[in-house]
């Protein structure tokens, strides 16, 4: 777990492995954390699962198409707003 003494944390962390169907699965997550004396913010998203069985180790990234689409639309909206703004100013 992230230490509370740090005001801000950002990085990829691994959780304890769990046994499922003969596989040992280690969860990985990207964490953004702000901790102040008046409150805090946490944003945590899964990035990958590391699966181990016997001598096999597999790295399975976790895609997030919803987030990718939202980011794309956000960038398009920003570009559209910028074009409109620049045109009026000129």
């Amino acid at each position, binding site marked *: 777990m*992230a230490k509370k003494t740090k005001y801000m*944390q950002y990085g990829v962390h691994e959780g304890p492995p769990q046994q499922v169907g003969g596989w040992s699965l280690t969860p990985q*997550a990207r964490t953004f954390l702000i901790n102040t004396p008046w409150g805090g913010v*946490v944003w945590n998203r899964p990035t990958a*699962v590391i699966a181990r069985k016997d001598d096999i180790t597999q790295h399975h990234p976790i895609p997030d198409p*919803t*987030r990718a*689409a939202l980011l794309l639309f956000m960038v398009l909206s920003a570009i559209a*707003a910028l*074009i409109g703004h620049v045109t009026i100013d000129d």
Partner: protein
Amino acid sequence: MELELNTFIKDTVPNQEQANSLMDKLFQAARPESLYSPPIVQGDHAVIIASEVMGGLGYGFGGGGGIGAPEEGQSAEGGAGGGGGGGGSIMGRPVAAISIGPDGLRVEPIVDPTKIAIAFFTTLAAIFIAISRVRKQLAVDS
């Protein structure tokens, strides 16, 4: 999953110590294992849901005191008061289903079409507004 998601935190927080314990609850979301559900096992297959978690919490305390003007023949009376408040929320969104079976492990992304559709139409509106502003400006210029 250990965390209760999509709920407002409504614990009573009478002092800083309990506020810190409430913060600890929030920071449980910062653990990678909080994002992965316990496996749902059916025969040879198991499914684990991976979710994104976002949360925020804020609180504050204050207090003060004073002495009122004494009335005739009476001593000055003092008063003091204090209070605090805060609020927070944790939200979760399923991102992927991890399926484990005899064939191995598969990660299936979970798409949220409602969110994408809302973002798409908002973007369309932004583009439409930008185009209409550009056309209006071109008409003024010419």
